[in-house]
């Protein structure tokens, strides 16, 4: 199915032309594609009779929406206060060093992308990180290196 067709299918789920449908709609698009494309912004604006600048303005306000596709392995690092104390900052700089990406970016080979999340609420196990749906608790630098190595290997083999 083409991108437009998939977008249209999502739009059909929101028949009401109301502004308060905007966030749920964007969430549906984000879930479906992993990001909000230019086409999607145009179609949403059209569907809700909203200027696209408002759609873009809204989407950029919130953490959940991104405008570029994610990597095969999406790394999330919790930067809650407990995780910060536990060393999430060091984990972050290590990832930046290893993969040369920062918050919201994706590696060139589209393998890894990075997102810094505000507290996910698992403060007892700080610092916490996740790769796609798999969580890692109490991560140390060495472990982080091993984790990334593992996913690299998974991807190549």
């Amino acid at each position, binding site marked *: 199915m083409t991108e437009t067709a998939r977008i249209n299918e999502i739009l059909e789920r929101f028949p009401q032309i109301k502004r308060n449908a905007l966030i749920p709609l964007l969430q549906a698009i984000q879930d479906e594609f992993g990001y909000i494309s230019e086409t999607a912004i*145009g179609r949403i*604006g059209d569907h809700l009779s909203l200027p696209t*600048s408002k759609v*873009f303005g809204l989407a950029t*306000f919130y953490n959940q929406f991104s405008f570029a596709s994610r990597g095969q392995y999406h790394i999330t690092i919790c930067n809650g206060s407990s995780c910060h104390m536990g060393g999430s900052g060091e984990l972050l700089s290590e990832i930046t060093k290893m993969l040369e990406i920062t918050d919201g970016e994706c590696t060139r080979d589209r393998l890894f992308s990075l997102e810094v999340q505000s507290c996910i609420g698992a403060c007892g196990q700080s610092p916490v990180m996740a790769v796609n749906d798999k969580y890692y608790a109490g991560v140390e630098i060495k472990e982080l290196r091993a984790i990334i190595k593992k996913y690299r290997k998974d991807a190549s083999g």
Partner: protein
Amino acid sequence: MGIQLEVNGSLIEAEKGETILSALNRNGLHVPTICSMKGLSPTGACRMCVVEVEGRENLVPSCSFPVEEALKITTHSPRVLKARKINVELLLSNHPDDCLYCERNGSCELQSLAENLNIRERRMPGNKSPYKIDRSSPAIVRDPSKCILCGRCVRICEERMATSALDFAYRGNELRISTTLGKPLNFSNCIACGQCLLACPTGALIEHVQFPELDSHLHAPGKVVVAQYTTAVAVSVAEMLGKKPGTDMSGIIRTVLLRYGFDHVIESSLGADVMIMEQVAVFQERKKEGSSLPLITSSCPAWVQYVEQYFPELIPALSPLKSPQQIGGSLVKNWLPEIIQAGDKEIVSVLISSCTAAKNEARRVEMTSSGIAIIDYVITTRELARLIRLSGLDLDHLEEIAPDMSVPGSGTAGNLTGVAGGEVEATSRTLYHHLSGKDILPSKLHRFRVNKAYREMSIKAGKQELRIASVSGLSHAVKLIEEIKAGKRSIDLLEVMACPGGCTNGGGQPLPVDDHLIRIRSKAVYDMDNGANIQEAHKNPHVIKIYEDLLGEPGSKVSRDLLYTTFTKRDVLL
């Protein structure tokens, strides 16, 4: 019932439902504001208008706080002043320190706030947001690093111009004003009306300045530089030159330009007169075709672009004519060389206009003939004022140079196109004459001069009863268009001006804007018309000559080649 407030120890009267700020202002008490703009929704964002209210723990923003009985307010206590000062210092800490190089030096609200609050020390150094200047648009330059995020441009673009090319994007220290996906203005749905420039308190939004580029052409051998200026410019530029607002500066403009090095100076209203002649022809043709839609004017370039983006289905209803300024430009490039015997000298055509969208318009492919632009440079009223100052001429003792009568260069009714409703008023005179063979008494058309966004008249000309209307301000226009599309209104001829009030309130006009000044400018245009010997385009001897020598008759092949244009649907993210 009035409400009594105690302000700084004395009592003032306030009206129920109003804000503290409006009560203060009505009573002659001044509180600084940044984000607040008359007629636009309050946001309470800038916190500059904070005042102390007894019993309230924190300072309150007077712009959004409704008055209550027996409020005790202090507007300039040390605590309030300190708060305002630190907030301005915070703004300055993220502002490039380049006032001397800034377009808005001297007319900047941030600058005067800093001055008024006696900020004389950089107490808060810090990193500044790294933003790139967007010069993509021929009309508007946007420098986000100078933006103080008051949101006035956002609100004016949305609420007055129904465009919303800009909105707030991101948040916190990343907050910025942005087009959709951060696209350059020229690739956005911006129609270059320039209302945001008038709204912007700083130099974050300015016109794409072109007047320094003229220098290489002036006095250059092999070049003839011809300027045309619009009526709106003539009645407004006085404000920036220390003259009484509303003074007609035509003579001074002509004289200064000629002394500065321009070779010929003509009035844009000449083009407007020609356009009126053609408009009447087009109108009758459309009538014959029996179109259900009104004939919609196309002289406002911002409006034209709006139609191309938002109402492509209305393109057939648009008048196929170029705008007055482009018609003027066309005459300058195609006819003037013969009159002045320019030989193989290159004609440089300059437009001086109150309009920023005209800068965009000049770059339209449709506005070129064999790849050469009809108008080479467009400079705004503000740029003109600077050029006049730069000329060093003493305006009080300037010996005015009379118009060169050998060159047809002035208009009549066309002067009215400077104000909203003026185009239809001027057109109606000629149309009436055309249909009935008689002249209409000008004062009978004064319904087009009421100070309203929508002006409408029924005119009985000969056997025909015509409904003619004018709307200005795009948000009003959009509503009207929707009504027309829904069949709720039937109009024969509709003038649309993007800017509220028309060209006298164009994006290139002097700052600061206020409603009163716009009324003065409009009145000056009306005075000019009332005092004119000839008030009809078809009686303008220059127009008659142009038709005799060049065009033949309205709607002729030559007219169509030179004065008509086409419109195309524009695909941008709306």
